[in-house]
């Protein structure tokens, strides 16, 4: 069974541009999560989507947004890129339902902002 996939693997942008990152969950998983791992830091929760709706949001500015499509894949959009947005962005998916569900991660997208 295919795991969580993410594209692109690497993305290089300049300050002020927009970045779009994509994620496909494991088949049967309806929840998708986005995390940011900046250099030297642990994973920081960004967004949680389930059944097409945003369910929860971490402590990030509104220029971080996303959506979930009917096939449960998801996009993360980062507008007005800043240098400190350079990080590894990880997507995870889990089975439906609230609480006590292991999340399974993709390989990540390395975003570099110049």
């Amino acid at each position, binding site marked *: 069974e295919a795991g969580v996939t993410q594209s692109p693997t690497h993305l290089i942008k300049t300050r002020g541009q927009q970045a779009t990152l994509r994620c496909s969950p494991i088949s049967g998983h309806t929840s998708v*999560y986005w995390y940011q791992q900046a250099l030297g830091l642990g994973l920081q929760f960004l967004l949680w989507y389930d059944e097409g709706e945003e369910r929860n949001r971490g402590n990030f500015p509104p220029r971080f947004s996303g959506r979930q499509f009917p096939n449960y894949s998801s996009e993360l959009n980062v507008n007005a890129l800043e240098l400190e947005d350079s990080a590894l962005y990880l997507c995870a998916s889990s089975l439906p339902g*609230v609480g006590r569900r292991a999340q399974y*991660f993709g390989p990540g997208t390395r975003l570099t902002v110049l």
Partner: protein
Amino acid sequence: DQQVKQNSPSLSVQEGRISILNCDYTNSMFDYFLWYKKYPAEGPTFLISISSIKDKNEDGRFTVFLNKSAKHLSLHIVPSQPGDSAVYFCAASERGSGANNLFFGTGTRLTVIP
């Protein structure tokens, strides 16, 4: 404010011996705890979890212990193998609805010496 803490950035262990990775948390609302392993250039891989109604969960060479009164959990790997060399992240989630996001520690780099 880091709600999940891994105070040892690194740990070295001889092959065949026990590896003990530690994690502390501050949020008393956490009721589900997970350990992930991460190799370079890959996303975190789910290892083992424990809910707050238990104090021990075992899966093969991996055992997680939870001490709720001390707000502490640990991962034991016995026997340690060179392939276990990776960064290990502790994670936790809160009880209640709408709180599927995970809070991660900053990771411990385990090196198993052959």
